[in-house]
């Protein structure tokens, strides 16, 4: 203990020795042995008695005693040997000193899950038994609403990546209810899911609508389970933009645009597209369509021809979707989690953990209603004014 005093000091801990002897004897011993920590003399063994260290059962000297007392004055660890040679090691003592700090760190890690009542007994538990927050689980990720507006790309991609890396998550069920939306956001989520599927079993569950971009996202999972009455498909690309040329003429507004680049003005809402511009947009739309068809074909294990046949932009009932290969199984949400459990080869009944991407700060600060109203308004404005390519 003398030679490793530094390790105690590092922990801001003090060692106090109590000698059952006179001050003179203790002084002589400590000085002779150059012991750095304080020693208190207790010639009449008053403190020994208080701490139950002095035992009548041992005739030969004192029994060994060591207590670890925390900063709040509570005893964290007590060691009393029956025989003089039963002493605790320095390593054990240091471990005991570290214990509260280790537990504090463990508490911080589990803080997002739950708060536990205080008390030492509760705090020691994580080291002894397998606690619920460490148990394997199936994560359930909700993809609900218009893609791009309600289902945000970057947040979704980050969440999916986190699920991929979380060792406790053994399988993921993606619960989809979406009419589609932004092509690029659908694409980003689809790719993130593909990467997740390469590492862990994934099941998409379509409970109401998995259409267009929403269906593409479902294709990122290994299996698709859908309620028989839900809608799937609508594989196609739509390019919309308002043209307000006539309106502008009616109210007598003339827009003057200055642009460099022959087709730079092709998306301006106040003029009819020229045949050349229309052809360009058509080509762009076709390119996206081909990519969509190919993605579905590859992930559903269908031929490109077959998918092109299906991909008329029409929606199918899930029952029909199963016949044509868009859906693997008809069933409810429970069937989807059971399938995930089977694929992950989980022995016991899995815990389900619902996962939701973190919303942006502004939205979390604002009340639910005002935020979603603002969001809806913004979405509507954006949808009607800016030209976009959508899978919907």
């Amino acid at each position, binding site marked *: 203990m003398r030679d490793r005093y530094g390790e105690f000091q590092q922990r801001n801990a003090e060692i106090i020795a*109590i000698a059952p002897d006179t001050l003179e004897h203790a*002084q002589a011993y400590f000085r002779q042995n150059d012991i750095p920590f304080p020693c208190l003399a207790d010639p009449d063994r*008053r403190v020994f008695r208080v*701490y139950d260290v002095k035992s009548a059962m041992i005739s030969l000297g004192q029994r060994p005693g060591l207590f670890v007392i925390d*900063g709040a004055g509570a*005893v964290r660890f007590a060691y009393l040997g*029956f025989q003089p040679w039963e002493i605790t090691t320095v390593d054990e*003592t240091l471990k005991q000193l570290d214990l509260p700090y280790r537990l504090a760190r463990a508490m911080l890690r589990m803080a997002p899950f739950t708060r536990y009542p205080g008390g030492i007994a509760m705090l020691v538990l994580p080291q002894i038994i397998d606690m619920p927050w460490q148990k394997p689980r199936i994560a359930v990720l909700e993809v609900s609403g218009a893609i791009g507006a309600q289902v945000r790309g970057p947040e979704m991609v980050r969440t999916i990546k986190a699920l991929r890396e979380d060792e406790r998550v053994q399988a993921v069920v993606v619960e989809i209810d979406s009419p589609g939306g932004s092509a690029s956001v659908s694409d980003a989520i689809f790719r993130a899911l593909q990467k997740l599927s390469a590492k862990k079993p994934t099941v998409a569950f379509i409970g109401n609508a998995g259409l267009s971009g929403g269906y593409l996202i479902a294709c990122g999972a290994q299996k698709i389970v859908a309620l028989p009455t839900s809608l799937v498909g609508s594989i196609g690309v739509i390019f919309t933009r308002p043209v307000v040329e006539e309106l502008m003429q009616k109210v007598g507004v003339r827009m003057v645009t200055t642009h460099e680049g022959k087709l730079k003005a092709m998306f301006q809402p106040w003029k009819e597209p020229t045949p050349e511009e229309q052809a360009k947009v058509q080509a762009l739309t076709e390119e996206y369509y081909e990519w969509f068809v190919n993605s579905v074909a590859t992930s559903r294990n269908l031929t490109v021809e077959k998918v092109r046949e299906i991909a008329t932009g029409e929606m199918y009932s899930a029952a029909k979707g199963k016949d044509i290969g868009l859906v693997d199984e008809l069933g409810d949400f429970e069937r989807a989690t059971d399938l995930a459990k089977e694929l992950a080869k989980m022995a016991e009944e899995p815990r389900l953990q619902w996962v939701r991407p973190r919303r942006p700060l502004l939205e979390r600060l604002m009340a639910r209603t005002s935020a979603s109203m603002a969001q809806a308004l913004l979405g509507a404005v954006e949808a009607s004014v800016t030209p976009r390519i959508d899978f919907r």
Partner: protein
Amino acid sequence: MPVDSETVPVGAEAPDFTLTAIDGREVSLSSYRGRPVVLVFLRGFG
């Protein structure tokens, strides 16, 4: 087998005391509040 202290079990507040240190100071356990203390009961110097 080592045993628990009957008078000072784990979780209890450590009883305070004041003793004279070898450098002559009067030292109380309570003066160390705020930092951990390892209390070592020596077996004597014999």
